[in-house]
């Protein structure tokens, strides 16, 4: 060698590019062996623990033919600015080859706060679409028949009442309503909405109310519950996603059963909203363990006799938390691996995170690449060909058993306290905080390597492209909102608000009354604020506004 560089230079260079085994535990923290064999599955019984795809306990997949009989739904998440802005983005996504539209709302709408809130107006339309009234929903979905087209709402508070109110206004048949939303309010409470915005008791009761109303009136509407994606992202290992999600699902099903709605009426409408994190094998094991836990719970604990209630459908969105800001194009690799794990894990719908997720809401280019990732996996890689392709692998089967066992252990602990109490007292949040703290410590000590973050940092980088949009639509949207508030039939609205207050005060299912108030052009902030008041909470969680209706008469 005639290289003039010093030995030290070369060594430093090699250290920088070499690939080493830096960790033998999974990303969630399960210690693994160098190899696995039949001795690691001493009690595994194929018929009992796996079953063929489409057979109980559905470990190997929900359907016998899996993607040969029905492909997953390729979803694309859209939402920013005013309804008219998001309307344009939906049209663009459909043109790009997206089959399913998933609408995300701005943080105000997600918290059931109006866009004209004096302390918070700056947030209107910033991280999703502003959607405070039925009239805004009509603009957003103009020309889309919600009894024909599946629109998925990546949102919880007030969105279902808004959609139902629009269907009623249009004179359509509610029993034919298609689409889905995520009615899991406890997840919000745990995910940063906090007790101020979503108190645990009111939140959980609202989840149960919403599902009761939907199962009775719009049986084709799908319910993304539990919304375990955000729970996982907030700070849970793979097994923790199953544990906390199952705790929420089970408490919800028990409460619905007490209202006369049995598991076989409710569970077929439910879908698990899941993430797909970076540890490929662990995620595949998680999806398999999850279906098994679900099936056994429904049959053995809830007495389900209907396969549709026992066969879990999974709606997956790849992990946003796992993507990093430095050298963001690396997130394309991360998201591709996560997307593949979700497909080998047998999910029913799939959104691939855009590579710019840690930077801003998706640019159009990033959204297109996320779609292409799924198309490459579907058409070139062969990810859809054969159901549960890793089933029977000693490693995957052993991991599936381990994730399941860890999940059932934590689930038992939460249920021993009682779910709502465990949330109210901060036990579940403490589990999440401890997990995040442990991970941050490992990153700080380089016991866990995150490429570009605590090792292999890019040298010099130009700032990544940020999504920007023209605020003109937002200004007219806010103007229209204010005008609407001035032009409503106040007598009718007050009557509906008073009726809502009385129902909510009696702790009865307030959904019908919320829908009536929305139809009278009440806004989400006014309608939910009235429910809050009736529950003994401040009308405005930020304690800036008072109810424009005063305290209604009982």
């Amino acid at each position, binding site marked *: 060698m005639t290289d003039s560089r010093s030995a030290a230079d070369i060594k430093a260079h090699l250290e920088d590019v070499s690939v080493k085994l830096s960790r033998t535990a999974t990303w969630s923290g399960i210690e693994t062996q160098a190899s696995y064999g039949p001795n690691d599955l001493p009690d595994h019984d194929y018929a009992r623990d796996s079953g063929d795809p489409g057979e109980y306990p559905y470990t190997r997949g929900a359907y016998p033919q899996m993607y040969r009989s029905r492909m997953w739904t390729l979803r694309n998440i859209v939402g920013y600015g005013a309804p008219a802005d998001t309307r344009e983005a939906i049209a663009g996504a459909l043109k790009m080859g997206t089959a399913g539209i998933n609408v995300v709302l701005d*943080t*105000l709408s*997600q*918290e059931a*706060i109006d866009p004209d809130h004096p*302390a*918070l107006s*700056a*947030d209107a339309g*910033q*991280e999703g679409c502003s959607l405070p009234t039925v009239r805004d929903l009509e603009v957003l979905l103009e020309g889309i028949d919600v009894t024909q087209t599946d629109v998925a709402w990546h949102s919880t508070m007030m969105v279902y009442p808004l959609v139902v109110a629009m269907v009623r206004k249009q004179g359509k048949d509610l029993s034919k309503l298609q689409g889905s939303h995520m009615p899991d309010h406890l997840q*919000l409470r745990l*995910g*940063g*909405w*906090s007790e*101020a*915005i979503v108190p645990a008791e009111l939140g959980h009761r609202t989840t149960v109310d919403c599902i009761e109303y939907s199962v009775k009136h719009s049986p084709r509407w799908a319910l993304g519950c539990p919304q375990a994606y955000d729970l996982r992202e*907030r*700070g849970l290992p793979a097994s923790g996603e199953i544990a906390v999600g199952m705790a929420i699902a089970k408490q919800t099903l028990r409460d619905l059963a007490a209202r006369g709605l049995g598991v076989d009426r409710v569970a077929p409408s439910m879908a698990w909203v899941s993430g797909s994190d970076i540890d490929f094998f662990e995620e595949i094991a998680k999806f398999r363990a999850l279906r098994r836990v679900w099936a056994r719970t429904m049959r053995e604990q809830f007495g389900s006799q209907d396969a549709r209630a026992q066969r879990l459908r999974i709606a997956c969105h790849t992990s946003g938390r796992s993507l*990093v*800001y*430095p050298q963001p194009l690396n997130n394309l690799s991360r998201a591709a691996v996560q997307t593949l794990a979700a497909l080998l894990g047998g999910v029913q719908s799939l959104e691939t995170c855009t590579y710019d997720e*840690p*930077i*801003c*809401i998706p640019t159009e280019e990033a959204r297109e690449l996320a779609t292409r990732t799924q198309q490459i996996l579907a058409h070139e890689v062969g990810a859809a060909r054969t159901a549960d392709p890793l089933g029977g692998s000693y490693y995957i089967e052993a991991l599936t058993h381990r994730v399941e066992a860890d999940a059932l252990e934590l689930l038992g602990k939460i249920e021993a306290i009682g779910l709502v109490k465990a949330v109210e007292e901060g036990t579940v949040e403490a589990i*999440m*905080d401890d997990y*995040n*703290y442990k991970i*941050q*410590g490992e990153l*700080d000590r380089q016991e866990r390597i995150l490429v570009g*973050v605590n090792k292999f*940092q890019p040298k010099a980088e130009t*700032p990544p492209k*940020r999504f920007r949009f023209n605020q003109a639509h937002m200004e007219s949207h806010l103007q229209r909102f204010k005008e609407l508030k001035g032009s409503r039939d106040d007598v009718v609205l007050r009557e509906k608000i008073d009726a809502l207050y009385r129902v909510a005060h009696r702790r009865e299912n307030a959904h019908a009354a919320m829908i009536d108030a929305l139809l009278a052009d009440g806004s989400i902030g006014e309608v939910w604020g009235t429910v809050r008041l009736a529950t003994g909470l401040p009308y405005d*969680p*930020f*304690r*800036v506004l008072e109810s424009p209706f005063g305290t209604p008469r009982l």
Partner: protein
Amino acid sequence: MSAGVTIRCLLGMLGTDVHSKGIRTLAQLLRDRGVEVIYLGEHNTADGMVSALIAEDADVIGLSFSTSTYVHYTRDLIERMKAAGVDDVPVMLGGLIHREDEAELRSIGVKGIFGPGSTTEQIVRFLEEVTGKRLSAGRDGFG
């Protein structure tokens, strides 16, 4: 460690931002280092935060943002701190803070900016620098 050299740090979030896992983890990591953290949590108004700052007599105020409106909220907070006569308290920002906004943030009075990739160590050094107080190392503080 005597009470006299304690760094009191108020941590919280403004507006509708819900992504609190970062600031919650930071609160714990700073407590490990002996910082006395007053954790306000999510969903504060600027007025509420200024009141808490006065009531708690904090040495530093730390905000975390994952939403794009951080320049607006930070400017609003600092104006209200000025009006209340407490703008001598240094403000630090963390979370999804873009480099191209740093100059503007500094011009409105932000003293510390800890965007993606920042370490706990950098934040601890900043706290010592702006308060002129030295933390004793390790976990022997206010854990």
